[in-house]
């Protein structure tokens, strides 16, 4: 008897950080549970259209190594500027071969770092974790901290920016190390952290001595340029449960901090059920749920501001539905954001199987959230 053994399928996910000065490629191999990294610096003349240049280097690398897009189960892009224009530009540059196999997923550097942190062992995110991204004399920092130390813990990630010129720190200053270390002392008193990640061109050049000595005192410090690409490729492993549960508040541009939901009955008690979750960019936030209309053709939505813990509600009336008995209309609700605090709720009449066919009619209900 002959046995044919199939090749064991292992999933690989690619994360691509399209930076202005370099493009980073990280590939997570699920079977080996390890990440391989590649970095391609962009020559100065190619930095103007760094998205196109970055993709060119990635394609060249793939060709040289006989890799094609099909070999990855998921491909995730991260960029510093994720404006509509940049996302559209990337989408235009990606060929049909890519689009046949993958959707175009773009996340911010902020989200990439947080994904990276929360895909690590608990020790990395259960206590305060800090990222310092130093480029063009601007220090961007992301602080991940626990905000509710109860049984069901909640976390907050904050993205902020500091112009170092205003702090008296200049890139060509020979006392930069001294000034920077002082700034760090003040900063860490206000924002204590146990683990610190350093990234960005500003940290290159071996100028940190005092700063490193101070940062490393009683803390774990990591430095590297591939953090965002690493975080992006880990998206393939699935969503962070804390994010799904609404326990991770992300405070930064484009990040959604409201949940849109409805009330339902559970064991005779009213229960709020979110349709969308927080912690993602508005353009990556969607949610869908099917409900059954009872006697009324009104659906009441509840908007929960997780930052302020405030709730507001709005009722949407679905008009012109055919007359049907109570509980024989299934409505598919789809929530889409068009900005951080704006969007539309689409309500589609699905009918009730072959007993009461749906009309397919869609009611559009726009929303504007109190920020």
């Amino acid at each position, binding site marked *: 008897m002959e046995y044919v053994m199939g090749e064991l399928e292992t999933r690989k996910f690619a994360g691509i950080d399209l930076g202005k000065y370099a493009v980073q490629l990280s590939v997570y191999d699920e079977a080996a549970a390890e990440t391989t990294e590649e970095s391609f610096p962009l020559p100065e003349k190619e930095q103007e259209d760094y998205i196109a240049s970055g993709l060119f280097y990635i394609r060249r690398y793939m060709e040289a190594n006989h890799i094609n897009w099909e070999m990855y189960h998921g491909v995730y892009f991260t960029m510093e500027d994720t404006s509509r224009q940049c996302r559209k530009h990337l989408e235009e540059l990606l060929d049909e071969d890519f689009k046949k196999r993958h959707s175009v997923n773009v996340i911010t550097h902020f989200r990439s770092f947080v994904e990276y942190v929360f895909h690590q062992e608990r020790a990395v995110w259960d206590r305060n974790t800090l990222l310092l991204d130093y480029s063009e004399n601007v220090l961007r920092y992301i602080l991940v901290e626990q905000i509710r130390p109860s049984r069901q813990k909640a976390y907050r990630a904050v993205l902020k920016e500091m112009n170092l010129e205003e702090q008296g720190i200049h890139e060509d200053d020979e006392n930069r190390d001294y000034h920077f270390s002082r700034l760090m002392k003040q900063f860490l008193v206000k924002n204590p952290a146990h683990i610190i990640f350093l990234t960005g061109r500003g940290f290159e050049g071996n100028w940190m001595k005092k700063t490193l000595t101070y940062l490393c005192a009683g803390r774990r410090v990591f430095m590297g340029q591939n953090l965002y690409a690493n975080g992006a490729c880990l998206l393939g492993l699935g969503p962070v449960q804390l994010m799904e549960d609404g326990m991770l508040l992300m405070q930064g541009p484009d990040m959604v901090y409201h949940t849109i939901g409805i*009330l*339902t009955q559970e064991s005779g008690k009213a229960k709020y059920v979110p349709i969308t979750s927080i912690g993602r960019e508005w353009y990556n936030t969607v949610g869908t749920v099917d409900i*059954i209309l009872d006697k009324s053709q*009104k*659906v*009441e939505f509840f908007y929960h501001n997780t930052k302020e813990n405030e709730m507001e509600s709005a009722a949407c009336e679905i008009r012109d539905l055919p007359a049907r008995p109570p509980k024989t209309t299934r409505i598919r609700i789809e929530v889409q954001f068009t900005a951080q605090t704006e969007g539309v709720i689409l309500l589609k009449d*699905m009918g009730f199987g*072959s*007993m009461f066919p749906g009309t397919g009619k869609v009611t559009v209900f726009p929303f504007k959230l109190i920020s």
Partner: protein
Amino acid sequence: MRESIICVGRTGKEPYRFPETGVQIFSYEELCYYLSGHMLLYLYTLPEEELLLYIRDELGLEKLYRQLSKLTDPGRDQMKYFAALFREGNYFSEEEIREILDEYRDLKNTPYPVQCKWTGDMLLEAGRASMAIHYYKEALKPETMGKMDTGAAYHNMAVAKSRLFRLEDAKIDFVKAYQYAGDEESLFYYYALIAFTENMEKAKEEMESFKISELSQESFENRFAAIAEAYHCSSLAEKQKKIEYLLQREKTEEAENIYERFVRELQKDFRPEMEMEDDLLTAGLPVRKE
């Protein structure tokens, strides 16, 4: 604050078709709605096992599948099966579930012939004439129903037989229906059948033997004329007229082709239901065990 009923499970890609009524469902909510209105069909049996597989594979409700699988044992209380099914989601409130189960209990305590008559009515409404006849016969067998119920059972059985083109049997049952319940509606159906299979004169003659009033006779004639007129405006009559026209013009081949297509279409609509009656005689339907 307004609360919503959130759907559970997936919407099936393929439908599940209830064999008794031919109704198709695609979701847990549709299943609940259908069952709550058709509990009468499950007084002596539970829904077939294929439904459980559908719940698991198409609706993705693995837990409910496991729970219901344990409750299919004939020794167990059928009420538990339905209670578990309705309590899986939020489609029905607890109060509604209690009402459905109370109604189910009442149905179980209803005299057997009446149960069968109601089941026949439900199946007739669903277009399952063969199965309906089976239940009407079961209802009439013990001869314990009141005159009105017996008359109604004969009338509805005659309607079912008419749908299967068993017109001679139907005529007898309409007469029996009139004899038991005294409802002139049954007599009108009898009148219409004679007018349809023989002619108006013969129908009129038959009515005289029942000694109906002139007013009733006139009303029957008017109603039948309206039905005949409605038929003349239908697509079926159009086809019939076309065949007659072609025959007059001696275009026999074309007329025959249309006629064959016409018959095939009618057979497609009626044959499954007519053939079902033969199957029922061999396989049988769920009834009370003696």
